[in-house]
Structure formats: structure tokens, C-alpha cells
């Protein structure tokens, strides 16, 4: 059973994408924990650890990704949690590579097909499992 957390950091309320992705992954047979909007990096990281999720998905449309994502990755490292992170939302091309360099496994922009997301999450977790 794959356990995923979908988290929405930042001060904005753009939650449609996060909810669409959460439902998509549920329909693909995963257990999906949704945190709700306006989560601090601290809340997200502690929740991911307490729920012992296999993978953490972060949705950001506000433009604050270059602040929020590094903070989340740093806290995960600090707490010795090796949870892979993927990101979705409005992320300019030039930032996609930077985020990946920091360790984000994949970045998904607007219009990404939901089946592509669930297939990639599945294959990623299955391959990192062993």
C-alpha cells in the first residue's frame, strides 16, 4: 500500500490542484493524506514523519516555491526523514531545474495529465521501496 501526503504550504488558498491530485492518487489505489491549505513547512514535515508516508507531494501556485521547498527539504534532513518530495503548481521553467538539483524528484505544471502523475508516483515508490 502506497501512502502519500499532499500538502499545501504558503498563505494563498489555491487548493484545486492539490485536491485534484489527492483524488487522482486515491483513485489509483493509494492512501492519501491531505493537510489542507496554509501549512507551514514545520507542520508539513512533522505530519509527514508522524504519518510515515512513502512520498510527499507539495502544491504551490503562489510563486513562493523557491522559499518554501528548500525550507521543507532542509527540515526533512534535519529530522533525519528520508521522504522523497515532488512538487506541482505554477513553477517557472528556470526554477524546475533548481528544485530538482535540491533533490525534488519531479515537478508538475498546469495541464499535467493526472494519469501521468499517478503512474510516475507509483513507479517511483515501487522502485525506491527495495
Amino acid at each position, binding site marked *: *500500500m502506497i501512502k502519500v501526503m499532499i500538502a499545501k504550504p504558503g498563505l494563498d488558498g489555491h487548493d484545486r490542484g492539490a485536491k485534484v491530485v*489527492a*483524488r487522482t*492518487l*486515491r*483513485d*489509483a*489505489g*493509494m*492512501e*492519501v*493524506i*491531505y*493537510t*489542507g491549505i496554509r*501549512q*507551514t513547512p*514545520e*507542520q508539513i514535515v*512533522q*505530519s509527514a*514523519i*508522524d*504519518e*510515515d508516508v512513502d512520498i510527499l507531494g507539495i502544491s504551490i501556485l503562489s510563486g513562493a516555491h523557491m522559499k518554501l521547498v528548500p525550507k521543507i527539504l532542509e527540515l526533512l534532513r534535519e*529530522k*533525519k*526523514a528520508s521522504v522523497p518530495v515532488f512538487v506541482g503548481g505554477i513553477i517557472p521553467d528556470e526554477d524546475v531545474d533548481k528544485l530538482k538539483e535540491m533533490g525534488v524528484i519531479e515537478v508538475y505544471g498546469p495541464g499535467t495529465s493526472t494519469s501521468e502523475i499517478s503512474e510516475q508516483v507509483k513507479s517511483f515508490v515501487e522502485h525506491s521501496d527495495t
Partner: protein
Amino acid sequence: MSNIQTHEYELLKGMEKRERRILAKVLSLCESDPGKANILLGKLPKSTAHIVGMTGSPGIGKSTLVNAILNEMPERRVAAIAVDPSSPFTGGALLGDRVRMQSHATSENIFIRSFASRGSLGGLSPSIYEACNAFESFGMNYVIVETVGVGQSEVDIVNVADTVVVALSPDNGDEIQMMKAGLMEIADMFVINKFDNPKSQILLSRLRAAMAMGRKEIPIYLTNALTGEGVSDLVKALNERFLTISSNGVLKKRRKNRLIHHAQSTLKRELDFLIEKIDLEEEGIDLDGLRRKLIHALCWNHSESRK
């Protein structure tokens, strides 16, 4: 093998040192391999927590109420277990109760964990007993279990919890109707939530009327989970009840009942596992033959796992 032993040692040490990260792993073990979890937990000292079941139809405000209860227990070590339904078709689940409790995500004394109901028809997680035991071994004072709130889970919670809180709200007009399905029997306390809604007065008088016909007097608490109004009274009542049942024998009785149901669920799980492996193609197998075969397999399985 030695790898498994190191792993077990690490989990035991971590639980003793109250490491949150380790508790999270042990809870995962409860879900993925409850048999192993039971053996592990058996090696740990256990304290007794007040296990509170929170049940009632979806949308009544159970998760919000649990959050409000957490607000009122700043100095206690509290675990919140939230169970949401798994899809019988895909096995997937959307676990959204946590959203209402996120203000406590980083509280040092509070641990929130979401469970999917998985195969369990009752709607409680099949690992619910193991999960409660894990929290008790971790030294929690309270374990609050929020049920899915439909079907059998409403009644099954009585086999898990020391105290069952049945939540009602004026949104769900047919609530009193539902009482007939056994809620009156399992409730140790009633909460009428969303008391800010004027219609809750009608619900309150109906509930009182329904109770007047029954044999036992069950206390009713009125809450607004969003503002926290009335919640301190509920928490006070929970604390007092735990003292009472600890001394009057009720807690002992509930725990005995719980142990029986835990054993039943463990055996059922083992049986399900064996049934999957057993050869049903055998010529002429009948009821008695199958029964014997399963009993034999169960005993053999048991002696093997003890080695």
C-alpha cells in the same frame, strides 16, 4: 535475520525513549504486519491510557471536535487516531480528518495519525487494537479514536474504547432514528455539536425524550466545536469518568472485552491468511474436512511462529 533483530532492537529502544519517528514506524508495522507488531509490543511496558471513541455520522463535526478537545488538553499526552473509509474497488482512501487538527501538528504532546479502514467491513481499521496498544506503550494519557461514522464501525468502537462519545448534530435530522441501530446502547456520553444552530434545541428535547424511554441515563454535552464552547465541560467529564471507571471495575470489564475482541480479530486475520493459501481443489473436501484442515494449519502456523 540479524537485520530484523537490529531493526526490532531499534524500535524497542526508540519506543522506550519516546522517539516520535519510531512511534510512527511502529504504527506502520501495526498496519503492515499486525502479528509482528503484537510480538514487539508485548516486549514493551504498557501504561494505561483513556481510550475514547468518537463516533457519529459524517459531517457532524467529529474531527473538529477532536481538535477542540486537543485544545483543552495542553498538559496531557494525547494521540488522535482518525479513520476514513477505503474504497472497496481501488483500495485507495482520502484521509482528510487531519485537516481539522493541523494546528496541533507540531505540538510536542500530541500525535495525530490517519488510518484507512482497509479491508475491515466494520469501518474501523483492522489494526486498531495494535495501534491503541502502541500508543499506550508510548505512554499516552489519552487515545481518541474518530470512527468513519457509518455502519458497523459505530457499534464496533465499543469493543475498543473505554468511553464512547456519540456525537449528533442538528444537520442530521434523522439522528434519533439512527439510535435504534444500537447507538443508545453503546453511548457513554452524548454530544450535540453545532449547538450554535438553533435547531439543536429540537434535537436536544428529542434526545431527552428518547432517553426517558430507555433504561439508562446518559449525560448530554452541548458543544460548538468551532469556537470551543462547551468543550471544557466535555473534557472535564472525560477526566472524571476515567477516574470513576478506574475504581469501580468498569475499566477492567471494558479491557477484558477489548482483549477478547483483539484476540478474535487476530485469529480471524490468521484464518483469512490461511484460507488464501489452502488448496480448495482437493477432491471431495467437505465442511468438516475444511474445518479440520484450517484448525491444523492454524496450530502448525502457531508452533512455527513460536520457533
